[in-house]
């Protein structure tokens, strides 16, 4: 840590960390939000994220175009989401348990297919420098943001708007709120949820592309540190509102950034416990927001059955 910044180095490092660490959280939570709005939970977003990271890196390396990699990640996420969606549209298949299977499958496939990608260097996504006004190298480094970040922010706003004001958004919400009403209107619950899970997988996988094509910007087996796992918790925290997903992503990114920032500043005695901070935070949030007697505020009604 630089001497010139003194103790300001820690908050600056946290801010930089948030800008680098939040986008994957944002994308997985937006994807999960879409799926859950339709009344189903996909616990396999971790597999989707890792698979997305691997395919984005691979395609970017082979084609030289990182944007093609992002697209490929989305397509792979779409496929994984549709597998989950198809299985869960069968009666008596538990969506939460199936999510765990998808997590293993996604991770296994990604580790297997990504064996050859650990060494080569793939073309990375471009970034925008917001710290041009400063001469402090730390500030310049901290304020670099990736183009996918504004894309994610825009997506959150679009999703919020779509859920509120468009026909498609209403149909998805209806499927999540009341199966009976949805059927009465003549919509197929299974089709809606299938599409919501598949598109949710598409969005979540873009978060994976951010991991491998920007930060940390390489491919290895430990690329995801559980961002996909926490998607479900983020959406609970965001109360199923895409705009709130932004805040949730910032808080979780911040929780992740505090450990390394403190370590860089010289506090390194509880590194491992610091790494567990996001998980503990999630637990605390769940304990605070849950209740035995009343339904979750803002939760899609059909979700209650599978979440409690």
């Amino acid at each position: 840590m630089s001497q010139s910044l003194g103790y300001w180095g820690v908050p600056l490092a946290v801010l930089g960390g948030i800008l680098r660490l939040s986008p994957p959280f944002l994308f997985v939570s937006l994807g999960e939000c879409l799926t859950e709005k339709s009344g189903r939970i996909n616990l396999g977003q971790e597999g989707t994220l890792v698979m997305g990271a691997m395919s984005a890196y691979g395609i970017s390396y082979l084609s030289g175009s990182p944007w093609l990699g992002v697209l490929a990640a989305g397509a792979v996420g779409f496929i994984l989401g549709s597998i989950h969606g198809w299985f869960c549209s069968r009666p008596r298949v538990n969506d939460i348990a199936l999510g765990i299977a998808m997590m293993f499958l996604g991770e296994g496939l990604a580790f297997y297919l990504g064996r050859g990608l650990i060494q080569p260097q793939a073309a990375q996504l471009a970034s925008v420098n917001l710290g041009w006004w400063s001469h402090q190298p730390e500030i310049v480094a901290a304020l670099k943001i990736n183009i996918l970040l504004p894309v994610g922010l825009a997506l959150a706003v679009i999703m919020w708007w779509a859920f509120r004001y468009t026909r498609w958004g209403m149909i998805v919400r209806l499927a999540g709120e009341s199966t009976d009403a949805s059927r009465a209107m003549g919509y197929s619950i299974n089709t809606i949820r299938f599409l919501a899970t598949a598109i949710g997988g598409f969005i979540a996988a873009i978060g994976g592309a951010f991991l491998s094509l920007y930060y940390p910007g390489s491919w290895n087996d430990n690329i995801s540190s559980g961002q996909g796992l926490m998607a479900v918790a983020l959406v609970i925290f965001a109360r199923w509102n895409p705009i709130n997903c932004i805040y949730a992503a910032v808080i979780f990114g911040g929780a992740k950034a505090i450990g390394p920032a403190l370590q860089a500043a010289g506090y390194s005695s509880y590194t491992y416990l610091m790494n567990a901070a996001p998980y503990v935070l999630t637990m605390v949030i769940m304990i605070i927001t849950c209740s035995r007697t009343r339904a979750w505020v803002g939760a899609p009604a059909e979700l209650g059955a599978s979440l409690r």
Partner: protein
Amino acid sequence: MRISQGQLWLNFPMVNAVRARSGFLLRLAESLTITGAALLASVMVFSIFVAIMKVNPLQALYAMYLGAFGTSFSWQVTLVKASPLLLTGLCTALPMRTGLIVIGGEGAFVLGGLFAAEAAHFVPGAPTIIVWLVMAAAGCLVGGIWIMIPAALRVYRGVNETISTLLMNYIAIAIFNQLVEGLFHDPNSLNNPSTYSIGDNNMIGDIGNSQVHWGLIVGMGVCVLAWILVHHTTLGFSADLAGGNPKAARLSGIRINRVILWFAFLGGACAGLAGMIQVAAVQERANDGLNVGYGYAGILVAFMARQDPLAIIPVAVLLGGVHAGKILLATQLGLPNSAALVFQGLLFLFILGAETLYGRFSIFQPQVRT
């Protein structure tokens, strides 16, 4: 009498006698058939995957079979791998009888192993049997409490136990790493941070002159005990009632919350015991070698066994075979461990998907006398 397709081709006296009398045999036949079909489907999809990767699928399957059940040596490897799965399987299966999907076996396993290894030092120089008992008590207690926490959160605060146990696995591993490198660290273990050794004379030995340790027998014994608990005790019956119909259970005076907490504790204690056995029979000390996914594989075991403690025994041996088979898959065909992870994921997917087939085939339905 309704005549269905199944009855037309299976309409001979013995089958009918069985179908009229015994729901148990029919249920057994149904789960065997459906699980077998799911197994076959995952083997087929895995073969296609392997073939795309330009490896002969028959060769791969044969290597896996050889590594798992081909020789007496591979049987021994399989059984060693199966012995923790017997107990981590119970960690998911027992709470599931009360309707909770607990996937926190990994956390209970590593923490149980860690605290068991540490507990051995509280009784220095004690007779081996005492050391084992203290270790087992520590492992069971830590594992049991670890799973009881999410169960209590579920019962009293409505926190979804699947998500909380998943998160707690990561917290457990963080605590594990922190303690192994900090408070419980043996300064002599530089390359591979570990706790102190439990002592060579305190190791659980092998059965006869095989390389399979006695932990296997302990695991099987616990499975049998769990089967008795589930099927032949009042507590087990209350658990099934609480899992099947909580309202009816409450009306008949069962204290559901207490039953749920007990089953969660017992499940966690099993996983903790598995960790203790892994330390006392294989590892000699707690280190990163504990954290290799036995807890997660236990979830698969429980689902494949359909939460029946006795069915866990063959399923754990089968899954132990998959884990043993991947060694030969790697050395003979160069397929990395992640290939076995793919197979495990496919198997899990199809086992869970096959859940939808239960009750669909009329030949497995008990005949109603008219």
